[in-house]
């Protein structure tokens, strides 16, 4: 994954331009912005609102409704651990506890050095191979406690 770039209004405008002509363009635009900047920066909200001719409040409402969109960048590495039932039934709770203990954060938290964010995800569709995780977008399954700790410390990345 390419590291997020710092805020740049010109870049943001060109990303918005690339998507705005399609029906219901807001989610595709927000995905693009987050892909480029690592989050949807507050500075982007008025630009998006103007392009789509909707209010800033509406854009803000959408950004904050969806779990995926961030208003601040995450850690350099993002580990998403599945918290849903099928992974629970395969020892997912213990795997999550081991990962969090190793990282020293709570679910949703980022380490003080900004290196790592550990988050919940509810189902990756790997329910017969759990516990499962998404590590910087790469799927990992059949995790055990030691594997989860290694994954968090970066040994398995």
């Amino acid at each position, binding site marked *: 994954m390419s590291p997020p770039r710092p805020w740049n209004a010109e870049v943001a405008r060109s990303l918005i331009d690339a998507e705005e002509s399609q029906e219901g363009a807001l989610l595709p635009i927000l995905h693009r912005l987050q892909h480029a900047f690592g989050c949807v920066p507050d500075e982007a909200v008025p630009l998006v609102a103007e392009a789509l001719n909707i209010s800033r409040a509406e854009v803000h409402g959408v950004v904050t409704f*969806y779990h995926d969109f961030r208003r601040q960048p995450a850690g350099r590495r993002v580990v998403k651990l599945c918290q*849903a*039932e*099928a992974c629970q039934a395969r020892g997912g709770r213990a795997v999550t506890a081991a990962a969090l203990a190793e990282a020293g954060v709570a679910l949703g938290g980022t380490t003080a050095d900004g290196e790592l964010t550990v988050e919940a995800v509810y189902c990756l569709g790997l329910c017969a*191979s759990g516990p499962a995780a998404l590590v910087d977008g790469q799927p990992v399954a059949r995790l055990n406690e030691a594997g989860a700790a290694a994954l968090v410390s970066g040994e398995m990345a």
Partner: protein
Amino acid sequence: MSVRVFVPGDMAAVAVGADAVAAAVASEARRLGRNVEIVRNGSRGLFELETLVEVETPAGRIGYGPIYPNEVAGLVAAGLFEGADHPKRVGRPEDLPFLKRQTRLTFARCGVIDPQSLDDYRDHGGWKGLERALALGPEAIVDAVKASGLRGRGGAGFPTGIKWDTVRLANARQKYVVCNADEGDSGTFADRMLMEGDPFLLIEGMIVAGIATGATRGYIYTRSEYPFAIDAMQQAIETAYAAGLLGSSVAGSSYTFDLSVRVGAGAYVCGEETALLDSLEGKRGQVRAKPPLPAHAGLFGRPTLINNVLSLAAVPFILAEGPESYRDFGMGRSRGTMPIQLAGDIRNGGLYETAFGVTLGELVEEIGGGTLSGRPVRAVQVGGPLGAYFPRALFDTPFDYEAFTERGGLIGHGGVVVFNDTVDMAQQARFALEFCAIESCGKCTPCRIGSTRGVETVDKIAAGERPAENLALLEDLCETMKFGSLCALGGFTPYPVMSALTHFPEDFGARQPRLEPAE
């Protein structure tokens, strides 16, 4: 002569090292100077065997699994390219009991073909449904879907043909076909597998739906958690456009159908069809009150056919082979086959497509082979986070929409999650309410507030605080959520809660409060 080796590119296979396995096979082949073609097929759906490596031999395809990257050199040395003996050789995959006993109508090609090869798709019976549809015309297509007895595979079980007819008869300049591929239920992965393993099938089903209803624009709304499915569908759509199967003249006909993929943003409630439509429009994914039905006023207020992946993917078979060949499978009012997904603590976890009527006990114990951990089965959750927990005493329930309803449950999208005897059912009930609180869209009060009050009440019961009163309160709250919520999220969350209470009351006794991380 070139040897064809199959290494699944399915997300569940990649999650256990399939990319590294494929790379190792390629490098061993290069080292030995062998001409090897590696096909990244979908998964056969027996996940304990992933990564399942297959080689094409004169005696058919021979499988080896589960293969880890560090085993590839030894496997090749033992004679992988000839299908030779090896401790992990499983023989012809289609002869494995788990696969042999299935009736694969929708998943016939998944795991077999190269998912991105239009030739492979055509050689394995692809586009026959579309050919038939072009010959039949809209009304006769809808009649065939009605006659097949197909019901919505997303969970609600509404007769698919009636929905199609409603959109067909709606009068509008622009109509839409929307595929609900927002498969968020834990324990389900059939949509994901199909999109990754046989994407042209979904495209074919959607084109047929467009022709039948008069819709010229289609969207596949899927999850950001499914990056592989997104890529597979986008690539297949591009190929279909290049081949003239999508666009202004579908397969040379006068029909127009444009199709694209839209990606959600991590909101479970967007699997609810009206929330999905709002999300597609670029809004918060909030549930709409019905009526109007989406078939009358759906996406951007236009008549919209919204169907699950599995409903749309069942249609090409129905048209190609005739509605009766589909309808002849099944029981009662549940006709055809259901791609059931076995998950959780189960030995043979995976995709099991079979006619309706198989019992829950057969699924879990015979087909699934009991638990993977070897511990006794205690509870089985059927139908995702909003489905009921079944005890062993109800293992005689046949897989059928009505039979599950009668027993206070639902089959939903066909997910079956097995829990062993270490499960704490009060904790599972709490989780169901907690999940509802996290994912509630906030539009209706019973769901938005009730879920949070429910979590607190379960905590009080677990802490031994006036248990009888709080249990009565929890039941009352569940009644309110069930009958007062706008959609299935608030309306069905009581299923796991009440089934846990009813079937496992011993887990709701007084105890010390548990410490759990706050969400």
